[in-house]
């Protein structure tokens, strides 16, 4: 599991984007987990909790949402969802979980078979929003 490295990146990014505010003023962080990367939510949350020990950011400020993976074929214009994609075996799925761009190796457009498609959403980890307390602590 490499969830810890990603949880660590999220915390680092929040800390680097405090803009001079106190860490304790972080009220809400909305983290999107791209479906393609197949992150284990419990392990990720546990990672956040562990890494936040001794820090002034409360782990409960983190809201985590799964973002559906959607694809658009550059060749024929077809769009589809991960749930509509067939035939990825376990090892291929594992490779994509390590590196979502491996989708271009193991997935194809359901309409034309092309591997030239765009990952429209749901690739990996991103921070959609950071909210702070209005009253500075």
């Amino acid at each position: 599991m490499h969830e810890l490295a990603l949880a660590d990146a999220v915390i680092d990014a929040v800390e680097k984007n405090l803009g001079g505010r106190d860490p304790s003023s972080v009220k809400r962080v909305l983290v999107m987990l791209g479906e393609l990367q197949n992150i284990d939510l419990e392990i990720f949350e546990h990672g956040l909790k562990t890494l936040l020990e001794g820090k002034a950011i409360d782990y409960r400020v983190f809201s985590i949402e799964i973002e559906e993976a959607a694809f658009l074929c550059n060749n024929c214009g077809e769009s589809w969802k991960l749930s509509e994609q067939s035939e990825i075996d376990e090892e291929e799925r594992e490779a994509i979980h390590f590196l979502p761009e491996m989708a271009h190796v193991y997935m194809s457009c359901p309409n034309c078979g092309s591997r030239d498609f765009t990952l429209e959403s749901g690739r990996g980890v991103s921070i959609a929003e950071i909210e702070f307390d209005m009253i500075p602590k």
Partner: protein
Amino acid sequence: MDPRLSVLEKRLSGVRRIIAFASAKGGVGKSICSTVSALLLSRDHRVGLLDLDLQGASDHLILGKNPSLPEEDGGIIPPALFPNLSFMGVSLFSGNEPVPLRGQDTTNAIVELLSVTIWKKLDFLVIDMPPGIGEEVLDLIRFIERLEYIVINTPSPLSESVVDRLIKILKLSDARILGIMENMAGMDGSERNGSKMLAERNGIDFIGKVHFIPGLDGMVGNVDTLLESAFANELKIITERIKAADL
């Protein structure tokens, strides 16, 4: 916001020096020079090898390894393919399957590899670059300021011209160029001076040359034979200069 960008430096903080073998020209020996250099350096240093030629990954072939999915432990652990030599590259995930990527994918893959790979303490991280002046070159410039470049040229006017263009881009961004090396020297039957002149013209060190060694391709995949070859013998002088050039 992309949280991965905030940890790139941290992930490389245990790496003393990062050396990229670059050229912009294809087929000049970036892969074989970087891979064999990594092997040579690993004799008395802790070395990582990062194959950044995502679309033409070759280092695993030179090392004679059948890639398989890496271990995870709080991140991705680059497998130690040889004593003191750990490896990371898309080939661990794609094997010899084609990896067709557009630019945005390439940037995403580079950022991912750099942000989730847990390198142990390393003396050298050697990076094998792809041809061109695209995402890989431009992203390394913006993400790893302390990168040191070995620029590879061959005795060919086509290589010289393309390499000259890469040097212009590296100099524009104040990149640290350790030197220009010539590979496949004598290949055209004469001992030309092109690479030395290219170095002088650009005010860069000429760091040495490696001759064209007939039969080298037959050694690909056999590390012991490669390391005993005249190729490795000549390349050793360059790796010694890399060690000595500690900035």
